[in-house]
């Protein structure tokens, strides 16, 4: 990319792709002493051309690359594409399939938020304890995924018309047991990490994003809800079974890094409530509609928006009557949040030591920013 000129009194550090904490991206920091004057994000290292790949594949085959857009949160990625195809083709999904989809999406959301939580702990220097505890807890969810779908992540479990397989025997009891275990773990996380006085020192008052700035710059997901704004796609445009279970949208008013961490934390609690209700009250019925694997969708366009773990994910699908989509435009949450991240250095006073903390409070997953 063409980088802006370096001003004479700053030093430009390339928080480069070879860095223990940068993820798969390069971020340029203009640094004067310990204070960061400007952040420039240089994305695009993991561009795979998913939007172009989807034009060459059938609808069923196209779900597989979309799964791999954010492996830690796969169900929410593929539910967007599947919902878009169903809207375009006018396919009805049976009730039980909708409830199973919601269950898998919420488990995926817990997976994603636990990963973000662990990275947040690692970025403050707290690596030994919390990051590996979250890895252990994610193992339990991954075992549940393996029992239900056959793969631990990047399972392609959804297709336009339902889900591939029904719940196995004894699955509902296992889900309830996992919910009980995870609820007990959160007392440990809350006490050891969120109420740790040194962690509060690192996170309180850092990178404040005012509500009007959050709306103006286009933040989404926990970044937006951590600034007090009450927008959530699961409630505003309900899809699947979110209208049938009781849950709340979590917002916090403090607008800083700690508020976003707490939003993710409480969202895990809400997801556990949803999982418990689904496991207790799921209706019976068929699980797949009759859909051809080489389906053709009549000409048209449609938009579907879902709430992934990181924010709002949008699919704008253009079809032209053949078995392949004509064009798919994916609106990724991380790309929008990275724009907010770049502006944070102008809105606050940011130190170098704050940069990993802020990045992990925005929770980027660069593979879905680059698609």
């Amino acid at each position, binding site marked *: 990319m063409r980088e802006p000129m370096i001003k004479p009194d700053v030093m430009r550090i390339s928080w480069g792709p070879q860095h*223990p904490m940068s993820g798969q991206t390069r971020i340029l920091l203009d*640094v004067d002493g310990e204070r960061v004057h400007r952040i420039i994000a240089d994305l695009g290292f993991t561009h795979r051309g998913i939007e172009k790949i989807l034009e060459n594949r059938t609808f069923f085959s196209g779900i597989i690359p979309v799964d791999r857009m954010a492996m830690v949160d796969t169900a929410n990625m593929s539910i967007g594409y599947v919902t878009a195809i169903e809207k375009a083709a006018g396919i009805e999904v049976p009730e039980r399939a909708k409830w199973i989809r919601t269950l898998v999406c919420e488990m995926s959301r817990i997976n994603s938020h636990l990963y973000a939580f662990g990275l947040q702990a*690692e970025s403050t220097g707290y690596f030994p304890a919390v990051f590996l505890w979250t890895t*252990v807890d994610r193992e339990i969810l991954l075992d549940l995924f393996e029992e239900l779908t056959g793969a631990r992540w990047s399972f392609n479990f959804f297709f336009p018309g339902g889900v591939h397989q029904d719940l196995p025997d004894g699955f509902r009891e296992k889900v309830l047991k996992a919910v009980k275990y995870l609820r007990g773990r959160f007392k440990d996380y809350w006490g*050891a990490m969120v109420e740790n006085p*040194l962690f509060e*020192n690192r996170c309180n008052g850092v990178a404040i994003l005012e509500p009007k700035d959050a709306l103006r710059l286009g933040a989404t997901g926990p970044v937006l809800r951590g600034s007090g704004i009450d927008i959530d796609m699961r409630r505003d445009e309900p899809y699947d079974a979110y209208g049938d279970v009781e849950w709340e949208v979590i917002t916090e008013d403090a607008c800083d890094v700690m508020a976003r961490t707490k939003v993710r934390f409480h969202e895990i609690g809400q997801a556990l409530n949803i999982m418990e209700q689904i496991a207790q009250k799921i209706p019976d019925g068929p699980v797949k509609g009759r859909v051809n694997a080489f389906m053709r969708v009549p000409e048209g366009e449609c938009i579907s928006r879902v709430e992934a773990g990181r924010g709002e994910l949008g699919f704008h699908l253009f079809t032209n009557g053949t078995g392949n989509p004509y064009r798919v435009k994916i609106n990724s949450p991380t790309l929008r949040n990275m724009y907010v991240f770049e502006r944070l250095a102008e809105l606050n006073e940011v130190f*170098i*030591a704050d940069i990993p903390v802020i990045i992990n409070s925005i929770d980027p997953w660069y593979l879905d920013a680059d698609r």
Partner: protein
Amino acid sequence: MNSNTLFAGTLTSLVQANQFSLLNIPSMIIEFLALNSKPLLQVLLLPGLGFILGFAIFAVWFERKFLARAMLRVGPYYCGGRSGVLQVFADFLKLFMKEIIIPASIDWPFFVAMPVFLSTIPSLALLLIPFDSNWVLWDVGSLSLPMFFAIMGISPLIPIFSGWASNNKYSFIGAWRVAYMYISGEISLVICAAGVAIMAGSMDLVKIVEAQRSMWFAVPQFIGFILFFLGIFIESERTPFDIPVAEVELVFGWRTEYSGILFGFTMMAEYVLFQAWTLMFVTLYLGGFNGPVIMGMPTASHIFWLLAKFMVLVVFIILLRCVFPRLRMDQMITLGWKYMTPLALLNLFFVIVMKMLGGV
């Protein structure tokens, strides 16, 4: 023991008198070993080469195993039976055999020399610590406390030099972070040590330990106790104060460009500094080698008590690594100047008042 010559025997006197011939060598060797068994033991084993290297190796292994337990996994598992004790040797051997990559644009005399200095200069200060009333390897008499701080005052300069010599932006940031951290942290440590010296009435470390025979100095000087405990973390750059080497922000800070055995030296240097400051903390505040005599062997039991207190502190400090995240640079400077230095002065004021009232 005469403080001018460490080793006694006829060798030195014969060399001085120019009466040296080759036929005398076997008897001189035997006489040397017989007369100097205790200094030799001190230099080679305790507290010399064997103790320093042995503790560095033990501490690396123990930290890896202990932290692995806190992370719910096993640490080194395959080398050397189930406990993985040989893993540290395997890692050191690997580091010896790796290539030392020196980029073309760095200042290579400084670059190569600095890790070696950082490992050896603090071990010079460690030789001052008394393990028993007459088991001090480097006996400078009544100047041992200032000598310790004088030698340890050199140790912040070494990361600064190597950070500048590396010609790398990350190392440069690590270098001036070292400068900030040591400036704010070290003043309160020296003031606390001055308080201890006043209460003991002398600056000789042996006399400071003997003055704690009735009560450890941790009790009347609890402010100094806590501040010096924080000082161990600051000086040896351990979490929560490992700001210059913050791996998630700067790729290893001032240690970034080191590879091969130079990297091994920087790792060892961290443990040597840690060892020196913890032993000094035990000597100043926790009574040094004082303790009940076991089985009628005063020397061995004194050494045992010092090492026992030292090991308890080492375990506790390694545990604190799991518990607290890292401080930010401006929070560290605030802590150093706003809280630690005034509290150290307050501690000194209390000590002077107690001494003038004739209490302790």
